[in-house]
């Protein structure tokens, strides 16, 4: 066994308590999370309680309306809202536009509107494939849904999952954030990743109290 340095719980806790973190920084992280993820009410409440400033909530509200529309399957509505917010987004993001049209088709199939779906696929999706060859593969997968009686159990059935809606919603959200020159990822997850990475690095050289459960942040005693 290699000789790893052992750091006891006592020593570790003492070191931790020596580290100073400002409350404002923590508040900003929380606000950044709420705003990026789109929790408008929570952000407003948090602002009132902590005094932390945030960006104009109206833009968050608009963005959330779009995200919500996609998550509920109202893709057409979502598209209109995005275009009202910023007409350039869909004009300059062919992949996003394709995914939204794809989602529309999926919703039509989900609701059993086969004829409308066929017409839609022909009118709206086929041209996307012509405009951009890289969409053809996904297009084929989506149209394949029309070929099966039992759509939920076919090879491409996962397209009907709610997770597909969430994926599309996330894509739209990121595009809007980018167009508003905001970061599209909140900072909190990155910090947590860095924590885990740092622990793993230290683990190679020392035995120390780790945090394994991120939600409780409880320190686990080092193995002796």
């Amino acid at each position, binding site marked *: 066994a290699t000789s790893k340095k052992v750091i006891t719980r006592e020593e570790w806790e003492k070191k931790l308590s020596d580290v100073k973190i400002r409350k404002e920084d923590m508040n900003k992280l929380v606000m950044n999370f709420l705003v990026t993820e789109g929790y408008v009410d929570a952000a407003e409440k948090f602002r009132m309680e902590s005094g932390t400033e945030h960006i104009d909530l109206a833009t968050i509200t608009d963005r959330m309306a779009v995200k919500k529309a996609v998550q509920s399957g*109202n893709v*057409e*509505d979502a*598209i*209109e809202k995005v*275009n009202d917010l910023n*007409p*350039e987004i*869909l*004009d*300059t*993001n*062919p992949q996003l*536009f394709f995914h939204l049209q794809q989602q529309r088709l999926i919703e039509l199939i989900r609701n059993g509107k086969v004829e409308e779906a066929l017409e839609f696929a022909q009118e*709206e999706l086929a*041209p996307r494939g*012509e*405009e951009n060859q890289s969409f053809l593969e996904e297009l084929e997968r989506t149209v394949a849904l029309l070929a099966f009686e039992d759509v939920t159990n076919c090879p491409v059935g996962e397209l009907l999952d709610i997770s597909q809606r969430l994926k599309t919603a996330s894509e739209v959200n990121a595009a809007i954030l*980018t167009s508003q*020159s905001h970061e599209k990822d909140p900072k909190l997850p990155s910090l947590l990743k860095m924590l885990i990475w740092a622990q793993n690095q230290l683990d190679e050289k020392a035995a120390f109290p780790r945090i394994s459960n991120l939600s409780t942040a409880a320190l686990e005693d080092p193995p002796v």
Partner: protein
Amino acid sequence: MPASSASSAPPHRPEDLILRLSSAADGRDGDAKLRLLRELKNQIIGNRTKKLSYIGLGAVPSVVSILSSASSAAADSDEVESLLVQSAAAIGSFSCGVDAGVKAVLDAGAFPYLLNLVVDAAARSLRMIYQSKLALKYEFLQKKNMEFLLALLNKENENVTGLGASIITHSCETSIEQKALSDAGVLKKLSSLLGGSLSQRDASLESIATIINSNPEVISKFVGPESGRALSIVTELTKDRYPRTRLLACMCLIAIRNTSPSYLEGVGIKTKLILILLELLDDSGQVGDEAAFALCSLIAEKEDLQKLAFEANAVDKLCNHLANGSLHAKRLEGIFLALSSLCSKLECCRSRFLSLKALNLVTDALTHVCIEVRGAACICLKSVSRSVKNLSAGTFMNEIILVPLVQLLCDSPTSLQVAALGAISNIVVDFTVHKSNFIQCGGAKQLVQLSKSMDSTVRLNAVWALRNLMFHVNNRCKEEILSELTASVLASLISDPKPSVQEQALALVRNLVDGPEDFADYVFAEDCLLLHAVGNQLQNTSKADVLLQGMYTLCNVASGNESSKEAVMSQLFCQTSNTQCILVNFLQNSDSRLRTAAVWTVVNLTFPSSPGAFDRAGKLRNAGIATQLKNMVNDSCVDVKLRVKTALGQMMSFGDGST
């Protein structure tokens, strides 16, 4: 079917929508106009196919008409504002990435309304228009226009500043305009926008690159102290997290480096630029495409940078991208051009390229459906075929390469023909016996065809290729080429209007007569047609390169038999007795190459073992050649000195003719 909002009503069919829109445009129902505009807008955004179809149905004039009536509305109500925003947005979408849309928008007269309305939505639309080549040129040199531009750049709104930047990127062309923009403080303003939002940074970088392009004076101002830390900010941006920003920053630096290299001289920055561009190639979109072109621009003609790129494994990286396949045309073109710059001077690059079996990929691209790719593949092949080692090994002289290359000579646009000729010119220098392969593929026939082209560049390159083909080739091939070319065509090429063509034609004849005697006779055919042509050209031209090839031709003929030597003498001495023998002109010339050629000719003419040497030596002496040679025993050029020694030795062996 319950509708959750008004917009869920079933959409109109396109023709219907246009009809309603057009009648609404003529009316006063603001509500209807808004509804229809929104419907149209939502149908076309993101949808290129729909845009084109609506343009065809005549949607644009109706939209512009709504914009114009809203612009001249008396009151400034919410409804008017909405109409302005929605019509501007629709116009913007029509113009986005669709040239036909831009044209329709401009033809319908939207431009002045949009320009006057520089609010957010209009600015966006105008920006779209200015990204197309079809937009009208903006006249920077007019005072009012410059003021307007500065006003745009000074606004807070990033769409408005973006518009200012787009206008510059689109319309700034001449160095006078560049200077005017720099003097008016635009460059400084753009530099400050580098600290703005993402879109402001990107737009500024593009405009800055346009203003500084090829303009040393403006560049020195840009990097000077009054500009703040502009150069270091741009350098920092090459490490930005967004790929497009990195690319645009690199392109700025490349623009500076290509014009005023002293500002970016360190090995560090050179290597960094190369590495960043190579990494950007991994981007699968437009950024990756442009990175390849930027790399080409950075290293073109610069051996030191090519060396650095080689050490950074550029050849491997570029070839890997090629090998991964299914690249679209623009990307292929960029990569081939980058490879061609990389391999243009360094053998190590060419070797590496060939060892990676990349030649197959280039050859495949010779038949690509897109013209630009075919052209770029030819240019790449031209660079790679500069490898003497591989020319000696006959690497390129096989049907797989030759057939498509020859094919490109027929029926292609001129630029493509010239590119193919460039590659062919190198390949036919082949030192093996495989030149007949080329002739069998119909190559010689095509070259001869193109040597008669009206376009002088094509003619020049075709004759050049023929010259190289003729180099050290066997007799049978010589015959085949000549029967295609014919002496009369060759004679007219020797007296072509362009000196560069004359030079290559003479070099062709030189190669023709180089070797066994039978071919020297060819110049005597048809009443010495070719010999006279050569002789005439020597008398009539003053261009050193042409003179050189002419003299060496005569020199080669003079290495033949007695009648050949006599024929050369008659060419050299056929002018009136007043003027100096042309040989003396050559011997007195400051260009050592011409002196060398002349002395060799004298050596051949006075070669002791031929019967008529004595008489020829006498004639030459009478023309003052011996005296001239005596003055040259200590010539500064070693080659000349040695040959003079031989020539004098030979002439003296016939006695010095003095009494």
